[in-house]
């Protein structure tokens, strides 16, 4: 009985030490740094490559200046020849695809990875579009129209 209590105390102490440090007994830590808009610009100024992991269609609608488009499903093949010691800032629309991309790149040996917090939803800067917005007049058939622009992903 006494031995059992001792073991419980030891395990509790170990858990108290390891959990706050982000340790896991099941998998290695895969933390990465998140940056805000200014953080992205600062990193870009220092030479970081900005990577937009949204679809090509989304990218065409507007993207961060200087970014390259590497859709999330192509990250592994595209990054195969990239410099592992380089710094990369990954972003998408909301942060889900960029988180997946960062995990893929971490598993490939990249260590200087940053993620735009909240994706473009948190971006406060301007976006570049391939065509500047035009004053569009939408043709109607005499009744109101609701347009929804969407993607499947």
């Amino acid at each position, binding site marked *: 009985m006494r031995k059992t209590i001792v073991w419980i105390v030891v395990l509790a102490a170990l858990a108290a030490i390891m959990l706050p440090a982000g340790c896991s007994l099941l998998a290695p830590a895969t933390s990465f740094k998140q940056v805000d808009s200014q953080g992205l610009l600062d990193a870009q100024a220092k030479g970081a490559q900005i990577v937009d992991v949204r*679809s*090509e*269609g*989304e990218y*065409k*609608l*507007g993207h961060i200046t200087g970014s390259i488009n590497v859709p999330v499903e192509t990250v592994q093949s595209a990054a195969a020849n990239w410099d592992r010691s380089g710094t990369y800032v990954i972003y998408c*629309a909301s942060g889900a695809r960029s988180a997946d991309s960062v995990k893929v790149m971490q598993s490939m040996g990249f260590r200087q990875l940053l993620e735009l917090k909240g994706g*473009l*939803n948190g971006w406060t800067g301007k*976006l570049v*579009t*391939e*065509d*500047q*917005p*035009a004053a*569009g*007049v*939408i*043709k*109607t*058939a*005499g*009744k*109101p*129209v*609701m*347009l*929804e*622009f*969407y*993607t*499947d*992903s």
Partner: protein
Amino acid sequence: MKPLVERLEKQYAGKVEFRLLNVESDAAANDLASKLGVQYVPTFMFVNANGVRAGSQVGEMTEQALTTSLNALN
């Protein structure tokens, strides 16, 4: 979002025309989005019967917000 939009499309049949534009798979939709300055998806745009843009909303919309915007067109 899709089931809600499809339900409202039936509800507003004959009153408001719904144009659902996949900017990823439809080149014409992508071109129109660029011309209209759409930068995010989803984006909802509300156009009155005269073809004048009455409003737009970026991001997911609740049923209440959608019906409010749709009702304002009639």
